[in-house]
């Protein structure tokens, strides 16, 4: 039997995408659609007292202007989490379609619906909003102080949530004589996903229902949120998700689908479209949580961790979105990654007047790894131990089982990944050679590992459904609720289907579009879950389809099922390997049979009650031009153990993308806020310094393949892990090069200038 899993199959969407045939949301929207534009607040905090729309309504081409005084009095949650039937575990509902209580500079207060973009833009400029301004706060720790502006009425001191971890007795353990105390504060920035296709959607009414076509990662979840926001029965909403130009977690949230759907209902169900500009994408979609982390470690001189404390303050921004799950994930990784008998961890998620933070590739782990892995190198510096040796001694050992998730480290992933990365970069030799350099330009190497786990069980539901429909020629269509968002899951799934059913890859047709009216339920693309989770429902549905096929083969060939197999699209007699008939002949005969016509399909749901660790590391080599305050990244190597590779070429591409994102996180990207107004200063791709090809070295991806025993395909997370460890590896390489420990990212020339002056490397 030919095996597709493990091969570099060409992406199933490659030709359509490179020739421009692939349809994205805007390609599908009728050109006659009305245009919706959102009026955003020009204050960071306060109340809308009045809105004068008269001038806007007078602009030729304007159909309607709606404001925060017109929307349904319904607060709804937006996070792209599976719904929980337990009210205690449901996402926080803290926003309306348009808001009178304005909570960040850029909040949504009104909309214009017009016949074209120019009329909409002219009307937008003509809207007059009168505010009652309130003080605002942009920093999480400041927002927790008594007397800070109250952003969400129900949350005292703006604390959305707090959680903790306690192991052993930190206070007692740290009293041990001879311990070395290492303490640090680490800051990570507010960044944005910068997917190439801005979020957009269009909506219309059909047969009394609302249809929304959207650039989203999570169509089934968005259906539920739109229904909740509009106060509709869930069955009255239909969501269609075509190809999308990336999401990285921003589109793992209901963004403007509810507002767009509501706008259609306000103009008699006419077709309306709402497309975000890049500026709106930066400010009024979602961002990554800026997290400030305080870590104290008590270490014996031999490198044994005795007691550790972590406090993390997560900047939620104005609305809960994904909320506390993000910082909690990072905090929970802390005691697992470097097990220590005495640990105290606390994390807070705090409302501020920044844009709402949601899901973003890595979901709290890039922040946690920047803090945690920077701190490990600070420990190494303090006790004079090599970063590699310290990690070998202290990282999670083989056989470790997490009590909550029951995740187990089955293989020696960390050491194997570090061995590979070390060898590729010649790390050991360079680490020694780069100690104690002098001169203006110096080189350094750095290492960081990462912790990640796959999917969301047992915190949330994990389930996936799959449908397969056999055609007369023996080819099939399959559908899942899991979404292609550019990462390549349609291709990986097609390879899995080919192997599981026993047909050639060319006979597998994926239905890429999700339409909640016809696509089986699945929660979508997030948590690096799809290859792992989707694999279960594909394997199970393929098994069901094979059983049906072989039963019909038995009827058609009179051979017992036990002696039949389906191999490469042929019905084979197992005892002698003879091909009895093709699957196409079987399907045709079955469908057109005058005795018992049957259309051959299968559909199943797989619930998954497991989860898998996915670990790896990054090695970086930098050249630091001290007088110019500039870091040149010479090499970056990522090594992953994500189990068995379904498609090595796509896996490598996935790693490259994550590394690229992490280079920006480490060196250049951050949203900047005007301290006087709370406005985002750099809401565009010129001033927001997304790194370019010229800022990248050749990206090097390597793998260690220990098949994951809980997965039918031996696979586990790879979507987010590549973005988790490069930033601290770069930071640690700068430490190796210059001896200067940077405590925040991005490590821009502005930061290096201050730090190099402090360290006496630059004199004025």
């Amino acid at each position, binding site marked *: 039997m030919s095996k597709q899993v493990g091969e570099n199959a060409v992406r199933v969407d490659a030709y359509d995408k490179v020739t421009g045939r692939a349809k994205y949301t805007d390609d599908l929207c009728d050109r006659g659609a009305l245009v919706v534009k959102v009026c955003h607040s020009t204050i960071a905090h306060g109340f809308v007292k009045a809105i004068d729309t008269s001038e806007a309504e007078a602009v030729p081409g304007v159909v309607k202007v709606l404001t925060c005084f017109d929307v349904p009095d319904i607060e709804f949650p937006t996070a792209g989490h599976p719904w929980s039937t337990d009210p205690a575990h449901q996402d926080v509902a803290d926003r309306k379609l348009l808001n009178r209580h304005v909570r960040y500079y850029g909040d949504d207060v009104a909309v214009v619906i017009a016949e074209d973009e120019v009329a909409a833009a002219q009307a937008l400029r003509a809207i007059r909003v009168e505010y009652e301004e309130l003080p605002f706060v942009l920093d999480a720790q400041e927002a927790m102080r008594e007397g800070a502006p109250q952003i969400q009425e129900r949350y005292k001191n703006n604390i959305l949530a707090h959680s903790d971890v306690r192991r052993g007795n930190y206070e007692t353990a740290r009293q041990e004589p001879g311990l070395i105390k290492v303490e640090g504060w680490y800051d990570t920035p507010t960044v944005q996903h910068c997917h190439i296709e801005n979020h957009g959607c269009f909506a219309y009414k059909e047969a009394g229902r609302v249809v929304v076509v959207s650039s989203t990662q999570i169509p089934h979840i968005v259906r539920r949120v739109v229904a909740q926001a509009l106060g509709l029965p869930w069955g009255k909403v239909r969501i269609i998700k075509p190809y999308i130009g990336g999401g990285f977690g921003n589109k793992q949230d209901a963004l403007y689908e509810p507002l767009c759907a509501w706008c259609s209902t306000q103009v008699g169900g006419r077709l309306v479209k709402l497309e975000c500009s890049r500026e709106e994408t930066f400010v009024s979609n979602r961002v990554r949580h800026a997290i400030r982390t305080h870590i104290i470690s008590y270490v014996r001189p031999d490198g044994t961790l005795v007691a550790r404390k972590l406090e993390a303050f997560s900047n939620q921004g104005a609305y809960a979105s994904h909320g506390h799950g993000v910082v909690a994930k990072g905090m929970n990784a802390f005691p697992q990654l470097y097990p220590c008998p005495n640990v105290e961890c606390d994390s807070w998620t705090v409302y501020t007047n920044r844009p709402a933070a949601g899901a973003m590739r890595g979901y709290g782990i890039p922040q946690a790894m920047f803090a945690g892995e920077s701190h490990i190198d600070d420990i190494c510096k303090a006790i004079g131990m090599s970063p590699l040796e310290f990690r070998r001694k202290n990282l999670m050992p083989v056989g470790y089982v997490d009590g909550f998730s029951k995740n187990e480290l089955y293989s020696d992933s960390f050491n194997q990944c570090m061995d590979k990365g070390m060898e590729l970069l010649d790390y050991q030799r360079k680490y020694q050679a780069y100690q104690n350099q002098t001169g203006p330009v110096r080189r350094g190497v750095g290492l960081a590992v990462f912790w990640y786990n796959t999917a969301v069980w047992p915190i949330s539901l994990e389930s996936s459904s799959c449908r397969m429909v056999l055609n007369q020629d023996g080819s099939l269509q399959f559908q899942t609720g899991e979404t292609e968002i550019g990462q390549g899951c349609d291709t990986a799934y097609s390879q899995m289907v080919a192997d599981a059913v026993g047909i050639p890859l060319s006979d597998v047709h994926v239905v890429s579009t999700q339409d909640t009216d016809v696509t089986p339920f699945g929660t979508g693309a997030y948590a690096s879950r799809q290859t792992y989770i989707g694999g279960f429902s594909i394997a199970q549905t393929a098994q069901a389809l094979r059983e049906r096929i072989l039963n019909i083969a038995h009827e058609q060939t009179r051979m017992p099922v036990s002696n039949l197999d389906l191999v490469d699209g042929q019905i084979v007699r197992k005892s002698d390997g003879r091909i009895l008939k093709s699957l196409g002949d079987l399907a045709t005969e079955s469908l057109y049979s005058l005795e018992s016509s049957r259309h051959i399909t299968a559909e199943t749901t797989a619930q998954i009650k497991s989860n898998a660790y996915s670990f790896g590391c990054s090695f970086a080599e930098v050249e630091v031009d001290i007088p110019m305050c500039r870091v040149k990244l010479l090499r970056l190597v990522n090594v992953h153990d994500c189990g068995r590779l379904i498609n090595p070429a796509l896996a490598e591409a996935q790693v490259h993308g994550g590394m690229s994102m992490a280079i920006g996180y480490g060196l250049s990207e951050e949203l900047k806020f005007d301290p006087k107004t709370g406005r985002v200063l750099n809401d565009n791709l010129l001033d927001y310094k997304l790194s370019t090809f010229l800022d990248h070295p050749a990206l090097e991806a390597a793998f260690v393949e220990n098949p994951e025993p809980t997965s039918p395909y031996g696979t586990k997370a790879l979507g987010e892990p590549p973005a988790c460890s490069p930033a601290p590896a770069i930071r640690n390489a700068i430490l190796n090069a210059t001896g200067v420990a940077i405590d925040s990212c991005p490590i821009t020339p502005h930061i290096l200038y201050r730090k190099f002056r402090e360290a006496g490397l630059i004199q*004025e």
Partner: protein
Amino acid sequence: MYDIKALYQAKSVADAVALRLAHPEAQIIAGGSDVLVQMREGKRAGAELISIQTLDEIRGVSMDDDGTIRIGSLTSFSHITWDPLIQKYINVLGQAVDQVGGPQIRNIGTIGGNTCNGVTSADSASTLHAWDAIIELTGPDGIRRQPIHDFYIRAGVVDIREGEIQTAILIPKESYENCFGHYIKYAMRSAMDIATLGTSVNVRLSADKKTVERARVAFGVAGPVPLRAVRAEELAAGQPVSLELAERFAQAVKEDINPRDSWRAAKDFRIHIAVESAKRAFIESVKLAGGDL
């Protein structure tokens, strides 16, 4: 979809001048890489435009009879970079404009637009200042020429008078002969960026390459408009070539520059980078001129 009130297509320079007089409120558009961005942002929404895009008579690089290098205002950045005259006589200008934006912008963006914007960060501007460029304007009364230093009035404002359009940028022979220069664009990333600081230095050495006859240095983003650091230039003139001179020359630029504190970069940081860039660009220019350091 752009909010454009009217578009007038100029058929010749004379026609452009007539259109300017007929529609004094209208904005000139050449490549569009700045004007259209501003219209999209709403800043020039509803504007009338006069397009000079098709006026080939002011496109291209040539040499006048007296040896002056003439760069037509509509010449795109990529054409400047690849032009043989530029490569032979003022290669640094080609290198500087090759760092504007990305390839698409360099194909549509023009040097005329770059200078008429009057912004301090323009990659062409510091080099044109350092090479004493002359701006040629054509108006109802004919041609008017003025040094680029005088063309820049203040941030975002240049000296274009009623009915005028900029038609060429001229580099006199005396300015470029035996001169070698180097431009350092200091930006937050290696492409698709605007300069945090731009430094353009050029030198002319004595025949034996031992002495600096003339050194010129100009900066972008070291003040509201591009500016020359004349005290550093005076200090270097006539001095023997040495690393120590490079250091003193660089330190002296602080006497003339005046960058501001902004959210994009702090003043002290910009000054630090200006000094370091001046030193490096001076050393590189001397090496290009055949000097030994």
